[in-house]
């Protein structure tokens, strides 16, 4: 009996497990990618991820940036100083 036939049979039998494993891997990879991308969409500064937050000033809106770790919020000028 040829070995290759046994191998093909074993692969076919294990195909459901392979599909599940691949699905889990893809899901984990997509989650990782989504997390990284969402961080890039916000702001990377000194290897840290920051949120964009807006603060209302009368009718205008000023874009400010929040440090997730310290909770500090910086405006444009303060950001340049960092």
């Amino acid at each position: 009996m040829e070995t290759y036939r046994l191998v093909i049979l074993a692969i076919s039998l294990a195909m459901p497990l392979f599909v599940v494993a691949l699905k889990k891997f893809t899901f984990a990879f997509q989650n990782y990618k989504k997390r990284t991308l969402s961080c890039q969409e916000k702001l990377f500064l000194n290897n840290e991820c920051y949120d964009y937050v807006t603060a209302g000033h009368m009718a205008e809106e000023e874009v400010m940036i929040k440090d997730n770790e310290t909770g500090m919020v910086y405006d444009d000028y303060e950001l340049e100083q960092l």
Partner: protein
Amino acid sequence: MTTTNLNSSKETAHFLATYAATMLAAGGSSARCEKTVHRIAEAYGTTAEITILPHTVMTTVWDKDHSQSFSVGEKLPATGLNFYVISRLSRLSWDVRDNGITLEDAKNEFRSIMKKPRLNPWLVTLLTGLANASFCRLFEGDWRAMLIVFIATVNGFWIKNALHKEWKWDIRLAVLFAACCSSVIACAGFMFHCTDTPDIALGTSVLYLVPGIPYINSVSDLIHGHLLCCISRFIEASVLTACLGIGLSVGILLMNIQYF
């Protein structure tokens, strides 16, 4: 015509379009869909005409004096075959006619039918395996051939569902791949000489992939004069059968079975 009547006809048209699209998507035949839609429309004092296309259904509802009409086009949802939905929707049409339930109640009933969860997929897989093994027995396969067919069917059915529903593969590719896997497993009878009827095991291992309902519906459409639907369903079913055949052939070639 009063505004209330206009709104009523409009709501009826919307409901009937969704109703017809759901019934067709669940595997109902065109004739049955047409009959039930007419039954509901008459019960609400309107007249309905439906045009059934391969992936869309167009419903036109006329008011009592045939002076105003509403046409609603509805795409067939990708719900898959579901006999429970067909029978309940048919029952709903009788309820509307015989018990005079209102349009609002009919909509609520429709929603409750659609909310009903489907059978457990593991149970369906197991039952499909048993059904296919029984086919093997019907063709005079022995017990070991039945066991091989059961394993091949459960494996292939699971793969087909995973590829089509979770991986969003095209159904034709999923069928081809599942047929290939099932036939490779069914070739175990030839490899290990563990059964006296390996040919029957191989032949019946892919029967679960035969699109029986589209074939039956296409014949029903042919009889009732829905030729466009008949041709479309027949071609779709034929393509799936061709994919099944290709998958089976690839499996036999991979395992180098010198049977034919």
